[in-house]
């Protein structure tokens, strides 16, 4: 039986007219990497702030390690490491000094703080820059120093708010690998907020989708996609050859042929819907129909360039939710 380490019950936060977080109910379990996903202003950061007692909820209760952060924030902050969105360090202090300061705020004596800071700098690969002023650090280095900063208090939970923002792709990969490694080795619970879907997809065990203050769904990516796309679990993308200049060597009108093809595809058994984006035709179907689709396309006299079988990613899940929201 898994016990939740973070529990939100009916958590609500209002700013004047705007409801930033609306009756949030969510449990996060020990040792998992949980992704808070949502567009900007969906209430991810506000949820994190309430979890740390940095802002008070209007109603509802947050429980972190069984402690209420609104009434005893210091106890919670002993157990939770928080890397704020767009974190800053004291520019005129070195990386090491910055870490030592935070370690001492967490009650470590000076010599232990130094030792621990050096260990962590090594861990995040910043030993060479330890004595460099943080004002001269690059964005990726700052973010890695931020991770060391979060870990120096030996937290049980780490909360990372948009941790990959502004780092180059290689840096992102390294950073996320580091987080996964840490989580697995030390049994840390990680709460990660982001609007970068691919990245979250790579590392998270479970995700929660936020749209305008509401948690609209949660679960691992596979279960989210089966729930959402239950009728049409397969997408097949067919790249067709269309010469845009009109100098096509097709014997008949292109548009009619494409439309005709679309109808033919729709009439196939198991095909749910067909969509076209320029040279790509997307066929949503119940079963794997790739060979039948290929045959149909070739028979209709249109050049088939490629045929790709795709799985649903977070992108599609996200997209689907927004379509739904718009329909509402």
């Amino acid at each position, binding site marked *: 039986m898994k016990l939740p380490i973070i529990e939100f019950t009916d958590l609500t936060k209002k700013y004047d007219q705007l409801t930033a977080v609306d009756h949030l109910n969510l449990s996060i379990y020990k040792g998992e990497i949980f992704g808070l996903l949502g567009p900007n202003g969906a209430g991810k950061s506000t949820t994190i702030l309430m979890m740390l007692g940095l802002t008070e909820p209007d109603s509802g209760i947050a429980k972190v390690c069984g402690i209420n952060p609104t009434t005893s924030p210091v106890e919670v902050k002993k157990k939770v490491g928080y890397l704020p*969105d767009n974190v800053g360090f004291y520019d005129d202090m070195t990386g090491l000094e910055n870490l030592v300061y935070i370690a001492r705020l967490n009650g470590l*004596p000076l010599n232990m703080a130094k030792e621990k800071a050096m260990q962590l700098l090594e861990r995040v690969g910043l030993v060479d820059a330890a004595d460099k002023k943080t004002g001269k650090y690059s964005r990726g280095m700052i973010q890695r120093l931020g991770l060391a900063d979060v870990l120096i*208090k030996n937290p049980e939970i780490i909360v990372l708010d948009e941790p990959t923002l502004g780092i180059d792709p290689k840096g992102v990969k390294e950073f996320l690998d580091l987080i996964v490694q840490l989580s697995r080795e030390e049994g840390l619970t990680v709460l990660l907020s982001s609007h970068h879907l691919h990245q979250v997809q790579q590392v998270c065990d479970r995700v929660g989708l936020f749209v305008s203050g509401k948690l609209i769904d949660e679960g691992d990516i596979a279960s989210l996609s089966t729930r959402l796309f239950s009728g049409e679990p397969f997408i097949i993308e067919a790249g067709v050859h269309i010469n845009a200049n009109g100098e096509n060597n097709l014997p008949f009108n292109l548009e009619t042929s494409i439309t005709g093809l679309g109808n033919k595809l729709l009439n196939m058994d198991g095909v749910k819907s067909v969509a076209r984006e320029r040279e790509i035709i997307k066929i949503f179907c119940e079963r794997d129909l790739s060979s039948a689709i290929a045959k149909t396309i070739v028979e209709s006299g249109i050049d088939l360039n490629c045929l790709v079988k795709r799985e649903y990613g977070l992108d599609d899940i996200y997209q689907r939710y927004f379509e739904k929201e718009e329909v509402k």
Partner: protein
Amino acid sequence: MIKAVQFTGIFKGRTTIANREKVLSPFWVMVQKEVSDHVMSWRFIILAALMGLTCMGSLYTSISNLGRAIKPNSPESAFFFLKLFTLSDGTIPSFHVFIGFLGPLIGISLGFDAINSEQNGRTLSRILAQPVHRDYVINAKFIGALIVISVMFFALTLLVIGFGLILIGIPPTATEFLRIMCFLLLSIVYVAFWLNLSILFSVRFRQAATSALTCIAIWLFFSVFYEMIIGLIAKAFAPSPDIASPEQVIKFQKLIQGFSRLAPRQLFTDATSTLLLPSVRSLGPLTFSQMFGAVPNPLPLGQSLLIVWPQVTGLIAAAVLCFALSYRFFMKREIRSR
């Protein structure tokens, strides 16, 4: 609860010096950082240099005028040493006037970016994510700057005393020394008021420049314009001495004085001149009957302190008010990283 934590912090701090294994409480770690930040900053070095020059300048004028200022049988002659702090030939103001003028500048420059620089540097949310109470931040900012100011003022005053000793060769008497120490404490309270005012603006304004400018505007208003405005109003509404009774005139005079004492600088000047010039017997208007028969003797320290007590209370109250306001604003605020 918080108080108790801070007190244990003090003890922990003491033991740390003796034994490196013990832990300094987070609050004193923060104060330590504030102090070292101030001391290492260019801002502080420039201010200290400015204050040093001030001391030397006023010491020079007072010593070069000392010979002329002492008249035989004057009640002031017993307080020879205090002249070092008050004498001036008009070209360079004396020490206590200088402090009255420059003190606010020191207070403002140590506090105007206390909170907003942390906010703009995006360090505030990181610090508040550590297991510390929120008020530690603002308390540490205040205590840190206050320690720096106190040490600087003590050092400068003691330097003036030391130089004076060497140059004139007459040691201060015990009362003179006590008066100087009272003056010193008063100066620190005065600067603390401006420090708190600037911390208040640093909480309110996002931009450090806005908060600095606002503080400087208030400082200029009180040190230049306020007196002028009061003077103008007084002139316009003054009862004519031909028609009005003396009671009315005195009442009016007291009212005007009351208004002018809303300016912190006036409070400071009143208080310091009473402390440093023992012959000052009252800060309000005195009637002739009150003066009649008075022996022109200097007041003892206790009596001088009694006279300035309202001024001192006023200054402390203003400082506490500013701090309370900034505390309230800061505690209510939501800490976002941007």
